[in-house]
């Protein structure tokens, strides 16, 4: 268990490298949006890492960045169309943050620094590791913000058309706990992120000692 956490946290794209901030703060107003956005990014990352590691021999050095951006943009467009067709409510909420995956520094960064230099198997593993770490981070942010901001945890609501279940729970009895809507507002995203980063820093120092 400790090993898994270490594997996911050591190079966590969001908390350690601070990449991909823009969707991380924008869509994590509830748990469901958070982890689904993470999964979307992971899917694009996986596909682009596979393609890049297969094609990198044929792409000349000074054409690398434009070529990789085009590869990523193609997969993002596919994802966008799929979401629009099958889970429309979700694609409405995530809105422009789906096409914005194109300019997510995580994906281009991994393509340039890892997938273009490694074999297929390593690239897939790398994409899974980074993608899972990112999903976990987004889920955590969404969890905290939804719990404090609206006193609920949404596991499946917008994708219920696809899965057939609605899973949305109230956590505390309404009389005991007054939710603070600040946390689901844009400003709350900055606060949550700052606090989580600070607490992670504290825990890491504890590790060293």
């Amino acid at each position: 268990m400790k090993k898994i956490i270490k594997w996911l946290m050591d190079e966590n794209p969001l908390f350690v490298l601070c990449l991909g901030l823009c969707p991380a703060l924008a869509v994590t107003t509830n748990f469901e949006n958070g982890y689904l956005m993470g999964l979307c990014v992971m899917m694009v990352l996986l596909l682009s890492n596979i393609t890049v590691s297969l094609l990198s021999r044929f792409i000349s050095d000074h054409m690398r960045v434009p070529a990789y951006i085009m590869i990523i943009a193609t997969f993002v467009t596919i994802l966008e169309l799929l979401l629009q067709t099958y889970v429309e409510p979700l694609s409405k909420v995530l809105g422009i943050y789906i096409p914005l995956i194109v300019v997510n520094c995580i994906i281009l960064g991994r393509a340039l620094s890892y997938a273009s230099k490694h074999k297929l198997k390593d690239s897939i593993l790398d994409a899974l590791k980074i993608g899972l770490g990112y999903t976990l981070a987004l889920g955590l942010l969404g969890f905290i913000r939804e719990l404090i901001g609206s006193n609920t945890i949404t596991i499946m609501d917008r994708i219920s058309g696809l899965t057939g279940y609605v899973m949305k729970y109230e956590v505390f009895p309404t009389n005991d706990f007054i939710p603070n809507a600040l946390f689901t507002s844009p400003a709350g995203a900055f606060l949550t992120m700052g606090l989580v980063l600070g607490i992670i820093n504290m825990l890491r120092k504890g590790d060293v000692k």
Partner: protein
Amino acid sequence: MNLIGLFITSVLAENVVLTKFLGMCPFFGVSKDKEGSFGMGLAVMLVITLSSLVTYFLYNYVLVPSDTEYLRTLLFILVIASFVQLFDIIIKKNFKSLHNSLGIYLPLISTNCAVLGVVLLNIQNKFTLLEVLTYSIGSSFGFMLVIYIFSTIRERLKHAPIIRSFRGLPIAFITAFIMALVFSRYIGA
């Protein structure tokens, strides 16, 4: 829609950085000194305005008639990247001093989500040409304003006594939180 209202809204109440979280990377990365953030802001402003105009015409006169709206992401990122390249070459040739101060920020802009974000928002909100112009100038001005204010605060933060684990990025996020609170109040209750 009232153009002046749109401009003020896009600068203050719907600031791209503080309410839509676009352009976060330069916001936390570049904003360590004042001059840098000012240069970055100017460059972003130019690129956003020009690429908004170009993508407006491309979307409405090429993609919509040919029924290929789904290609917008691909096309827009291509437009932005080539714009940044073109801009880089022109400035290098004609305005040497400007290039020296902007030079390092230009390549960063093509992966700046503020540019693609504003361009996509223009399309999503179905703006007319004048509104596109107002919105893109307004929101890029908002970007510049916020990043400049933030950099001046960060210069002071360097000398502030903060708990060790919160130094650097965590306190930067909390500063951004206070700024976002102030800006969101412009909506009025």
